[in-house]
């Protein structure tokens, strides 16, 4: 994906920057830099629930390698993670832990509901299974499939990157004080 936001203001006005620095200066908006950095360093939490986790692992391994998207480290602590990939069936027994992990992640944070079970409970109309991750936490991307292939997961990442690219520092909720609109 080309970084249009950065490159479109490459021509630096002469009045702002001395001539000898013009080839070294770059003007752009705060949002562009901020979102570019966030999109290119979105660390997922190391968290697998069921069979979808294997496709997630495959997406991270050599053939598909989501490290290309800047997601190099599936981080083992929710405190340093930006993205929760809910990969697999959520049982009622696991649900409190899922909510707890989500609450421990600092803002800005995003979640992908990967697979039919996390989207809607899937084939399990059962006493043991939560009928969709949206019952527990906010979901940004719904990725259907049973399980979705690694390509599909990477497509979900690109969609998430698009979404992140459209957010503005001025309006996001996590830099606002409590009660501020």
């Amino acid at each position, binding site marked *: 994906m080309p970084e249009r936001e950065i490159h479109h203001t490459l021509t630096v006005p002469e009045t702002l920057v001395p001539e000898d620095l013009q080839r070294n200066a770059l003007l752009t908006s705060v949002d562009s830099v901020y979102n570019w950095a966030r999109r290119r360093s979105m660390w997922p939490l190391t968290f697998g629930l069921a069979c979808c986790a294997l496709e997630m692992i495959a997406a991270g391994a050599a053939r598909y390698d989501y490290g290309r998207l800047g997601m190099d480290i599936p981080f083992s602590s929710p405190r340093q993670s930006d993205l929760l990939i809910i990969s697999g069936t959520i049982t*009622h*027994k696991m*649900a*409190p*832990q899922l909510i707890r992990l989500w609450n421990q992640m600092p803002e800005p944070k995003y979640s992908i509901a990967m697979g039919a079970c996390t989207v809607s*409970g899937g084939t399990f*109309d*059962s*006493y*043991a*299974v*939560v*009928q969709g991750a949206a*019952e*527990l936490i906010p979901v940004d991307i719904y990725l259907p499939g049973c399980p979705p292939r690694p390509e599909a997961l990477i497509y979900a990442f690109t969609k998430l990157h698009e979404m992140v690219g459209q957010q503005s520092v001025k309006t996001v909720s996590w830099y606002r004080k409590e009660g501020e609109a």
Partner: protein
Amino acid sequence: MSHQATLDTLLTRFPEAGIERQEGLDFTIVLPSSLIVDACRTLRDDLGFDFLSNLTAVDRPDAFEVVYHLYSLSNPAPPLALKVRLADKADPRLASVTSVWEGANLQEREVYDLFGIVFEGHPKLERILLWEGFPGHPLRKDFINRIYSFEEMRATLPPETER
């Protein structure tokens, strides 16, 4: 040791008990529930069945049936299935065989969890797959399977400090 020799040994050891031989493909012995620990100890010590491969239960219309699959690693005896019928479906109870095979521990907990069969003498008889407070025993035939919302289930989940 052949199956017939196994059966003969058990019949000699426990003559008054109603030990039955079920016809069929598998070699199965049906035991009365009062005999289970003694019979298992005999099977392990004298007949070489040193490996409890599987312990499960079946919900029959008239009884719970606890099934033990035994193998011998020390001597090449053919595998053996033991069955115990528990006619009291309201309060099924059976002696634990954890004193004979340590490996029965988790399997008896699973049967207790999913069927509600109480194993007396078990060192730690708690639910293993589901949580304490789950309504019912899901592998019983009278358990009605339906979707529970998380809100509904949350009331039964253990408090946060114990998760």
